[in-house]
């Protein structure tokens, strides 16, 4: 517990530290990282704990983002309404997609989730009234009581949701439900033979994760005041998966660590040119993806438990 609180304290104090060091423009970046941390954590539930390789999680993030944005342009500017609506919509999407997808196994499941997300991408792309492929721009952030236009305030709101989600995830994974989900992941045949209706549990897990993803989407749309179908592109699902594996599948802070690592890495490459690297390969900064790809490959081949797995005695979902 102490470790959890220590990490939380770091995030709590970050804006204050940044303000003190006169680097306040980084607070917005930090918010973005935390939002992705939330999205990655939601995927971690279904992928890490549940063992379901869902390659279409971006669909739920995107659903949340679009529902929140569409509500805004239609006049509903209150986050009190828009954000729960986004969550509910994402949960519904997860219910529908999960109901069909979870009837399949293994590789089929991976591909069908991928295809469904892509389907939603094309669908939104063709919806010209809500921006089509150009996306939807919002004039300002929604109303929440606190002025979300203030970057520090927005940061703490996002942090609140992230902390809340992590706490709920903690309770969930230690509850009866969580134990069954892990059991199903470990040995589906045995779990079924004990009398657990496997499909139902997986679907519930899928929906919960989708809902949390939707919340992240709503926050994402609010943060950038912009949403486009690219949020749902399957490569975005891939990015979320990269975060989860980088951070550590099935570990509580996996999503957070992964988001920080990946986005941090991308940012470092883009904003901080390294002299000798520049000389060796001019324009290397535009090829950040190459570094990401290589790091990911290395992690998959050599450190399959991700960053969190490198910490000795880290609490694992397994035992």
């Amino acid at each position, binding site marked *: 517990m102490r470790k959890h609180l220590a990490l939380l304290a770091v995030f709590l104090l970050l804006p204050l530290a940044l303000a003190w060091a006169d680097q306040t423009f980084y607070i917005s970046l930090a918010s973005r990282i935390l939002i992705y941390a939330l999205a990655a954590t939601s995927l971690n539930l279904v992928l890490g704990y549940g063992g379901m390789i869902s390659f279409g999680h971006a669909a739920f993030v995107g659903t949340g983002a679009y529902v929140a944005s569409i509500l805004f342009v239609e006049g509903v500017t209150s986050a009190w309404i828009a954000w729960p609506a986004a969550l509910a919509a994402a949960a519904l999407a997860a219910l529908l997609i999960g109901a069909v997808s979870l009837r399949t196994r293994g590789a089929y499941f991976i591909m069908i989730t991928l295809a469904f997300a892509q389907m939603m991408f094309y669908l939104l792309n063709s919806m010209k009234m809500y921006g089509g492929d150009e996306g939807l721009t919002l004039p300002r952030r929604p109303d929440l009581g606190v002025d979300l236009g203030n970057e520090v305030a927005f940061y703490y709101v996002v942090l609140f949701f992230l902390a809340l989600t992590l706490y709920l995830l903690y*309770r*969930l994974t*230690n*509850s*009866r*439900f*969580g*134990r*069954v989900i892990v*059991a199903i992941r*470990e*040995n589906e*045949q*045995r*779990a*079924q*033979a*004990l*009398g*657990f*209706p*496997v499909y139902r*549990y997986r679907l*519930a897990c899928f929906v919960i994760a989708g809902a949390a993803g939707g919340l992240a989407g709503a926050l994402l749309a609010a943060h950038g005041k912009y949403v486009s179908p690219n949020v749902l592109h399957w490569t975005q699902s891939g990015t979320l998966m990269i975060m989860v594996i980088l951070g550590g599948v099935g570990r509580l802070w996996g999503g957070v660590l992964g988001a920080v690592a990946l986005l941090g890495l991308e940012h470092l490459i883009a904003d901080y040119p390294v002299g000798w690297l520049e000389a060796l390969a001019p324009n290397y900064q535009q090829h950040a993806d190459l570094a990401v790809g290589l790091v990911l490959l290395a992690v998959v081949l050599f450190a399959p438990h991700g960053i969190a797995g490198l910490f000795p005695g880290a609490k694992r979902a*397994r*035992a």
Partner: protein
Amino acid sequence: MLELKGLSKHFGGVIATRDVTLNVARGEVHALIGPNGAGKTTLIGQVAGTIRSDSGQVLFEGVDITALAPHQRVRRGLARSFQITSIFGRLPLLENLALAVQARSGSSFSFWKPVAAERELFRQAEEVAADLGLSGRLHFTSSSLAHGEQRALEVGLALATKPKLVLLDEPMAGLGAEESRRMVELIERVSGRVTVLLVEHDMDAVFRLADRISVLVNGRIVASGAPQEIRANEEVRKAYLGDELAA
């Protein structure tokens, strides 16, 4: 208690079980024997619901359960152990059993309360472990247990759901002499409170435990009755028992 009527199953061109009709009476230990490839595991799968039969019926306590999903059959009191050990390898032994106990005690759609606080679950799990003779191994990771202990756990998982009838698929597979003896004693102990349909190759165990024996050859039941009858049956001896008894 368990009635199989005309169960058949084929995979592509291969007929695994053919018009199998069988009765298991309440409280008995009914052994199912037969050469390798005879279709025994397929039949167990058909009874447990993991394999969908092409034709025939499965009646449990008079109720037709043929259309029920596996987990629904377990809920009705029909449990099974697997021929190839199927446990939660990365979890400790105690947690394996606790999951089985959890399965039969109330709903697991509970998202908030930590399982660790449910002392009763773990107490019952410890009881089962004691029954299995595995009290000294509670916190060992299951995959690190000896083969014999894993087979015991395999059976234990089926028993921990407090079933009315348990399907044991070659519980003695791969066990040495001492471990086999212990497994036989375990089955003897539980046969008092649970009906058993036992698939086995180990003839000593079969003749010691079984109240009745059915013989499955090429997917068909060729004989069924008291152990002495089966032992004396010429056809069975020729088709199957000959080498086993001589050995």
